[in-house]
């Protein structure tokens, strides 16, 4: 089901890409800012929402997921190295799942640590745990979405950016009830549900968030597998 050779090669390729490496300062920024607030004794209620949610959950998490998710298969399709993978006797399901494991693995690891440590500066250990688990969930859902997007469109980063900024960043918070279709609300619902904190505000229950997350992951992964099964390679010179 999961091909470790693909996972290993994919992770290695990721760390060789400048686009990914350029993003790594962002998680550091989240942790650094939270640490500063702690050092200067700013009241937790003042900075928890803007830094943890506004920057961490709403921006850095989807952005990292997008760059990584769109890279693992999308970049290979762009530069043509995907041929090496496609001309192997591997079920397309195995390829997609392995790519997803690589993408989600990297994102989840980076973001769970980032959000966990940043939230730990609030002094609420439970919130740190909750946000770390939320990051795991969010990283997985976003990765599934963006891997699928990279197989549907040749411009996954552009479309992904629009989605992150306009839907997740704006509309999901403005439209009533839109939270049920927003990954960042799933993250916050799970973090709140686990930690029982009143620092974060969310109108979604944890069970709904979990069910919706599972649905999105399954649907997006299914779509990605299907797209790779009928993937057509077009020649440059005909």
């Amino acid at each position, binding site marked *: 089901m999961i091909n470790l050779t*693909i996972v290993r090669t994919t992770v290695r390729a990721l760390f060789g890409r400048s686009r990914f490496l350029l993003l790594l300062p962002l998680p550091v920024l989240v942790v650094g800012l939270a640490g500063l607030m702690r050092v200067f004794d700013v009241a937790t209620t003042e900075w928890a929402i803007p830094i943890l949610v506004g920057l961490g959950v709403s921006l850095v998490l989807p952005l990292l997921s997008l760059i990584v998710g769109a890279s693992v298969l999308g970049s290979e399709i762009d530069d043509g190295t995907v041929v090496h993978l496609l001309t192997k*006797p591997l079920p397309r399901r195995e390829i997609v799942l392995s790519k997803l494991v690589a993408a989600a693995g990297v994102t989840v690891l980076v973001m769970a640590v980032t959000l966990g440590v940043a939230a730990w500066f609030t002094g609420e250990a439970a919130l740190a745990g909750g946000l770390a688990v939320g990051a795991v969930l969010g990283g997985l859902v976003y990765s599934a979405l963006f891997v699928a997007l990279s197989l549907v469109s040749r411009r996954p980063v552009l479309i992904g950016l629009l989605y992150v900024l306009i839907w997740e960043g704006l509309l999901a918070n403005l439209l009533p009830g839109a939270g049920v279709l927003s990954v960042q609300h799933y993250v916050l619902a799970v973090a709140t549900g686990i930690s029982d904190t009143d620092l974060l505000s969310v109108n979604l229950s944890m069970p709904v968030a979990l069910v919706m997350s599972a649905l999105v992951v399954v649907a997006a992964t299914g779509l990605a597998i299907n797209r790779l099964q009928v993937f057509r390679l077009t020649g*440059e010179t005909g």
Partner: protein
Amino acid sequence: MTAETLKASATADAPARGGAPAATVELSHVSRWYGNVVAVNDVTMTLGPGVTGLLGPNGAGKTTLLHLMAGLLSPSRGTVTVAGASAWRRPELYRILGLVSEREAVPEYLTGWEFVLTSAKLHKLPDPTAAARRAVELVDMTAAEGRRIGTYSKGMRQRIRVAAALVHEPAVLLLDEPFNGMDPRQRLHMMEVLHRLGEQGRTVLFSSHILEEVAQLSGTVQVMVAGRLAASGDFRAIRRLMTHRPHVFTVHSSDDRRLAVALLAHEAVQGVELDPAGGLTVRTSDYGTFTRTLPAVAVAEGIRVTRVLPSDESLESVFSYLVAS
């Protein structure tokens, strides 16, 4: 079709000399278009064991044809089968098929050895290390295998890609412009490798737009022009079959003017021109007759012919003729 039956049908084909499994690639009335552009137009061909050249100018549809055979494209019309089973949407195909694509894409962060070994592992071969070792030796890349691919020359990249494509010893090997970027020595070596694979009974197809490559490597050729299969079979035979096409020779002799007059008397000769720099340009409608007539005329007239050159034997002239007809 399962992997087992595929393997069985692959080995059931003609027994190969070197013991390698043989497989046939068959295209039946295959067309492929992109929107309004027809890339491949009603092509029917059968490829058996041995080396075949796929010849054609750039944009003739060679890459599209190779991708159709490799199961990376679906035909818009017609059927493509490899070892008796459809090529499209069948990953098991790659147990018996290898492809070296035209785009030079290689993961540059890997060393040559890692790249070939990864390929062997993805094929789930029982002994990937031994298979990778064999493949790297075959393309003569052992000395450079520890270097990152990013540092390789064009020819070296091409060879390491060939190694990765045949690490599982496929019965069918498809190569898109494999000699691009190679120096003459590397070219010669690659030709030897392909020859050996063909002699082992593998079906080897390589595309090229350069006549000399095909002439040196394979007698059997499929000529593509503007998406169509313009000719197929032995290259020299194809060339000779085009009897309607005027052939042009450059002839140098001890007395060009007298030879010109004598040649004009013959029906096979359509025109003669005296070149200011010396020599004659002779146009003939019949290759065979002219090559017999010329010595006879020279002997009868007592003229010594010092040089006869077929001046239009380039691929471009063959192509332009095929396109025009």
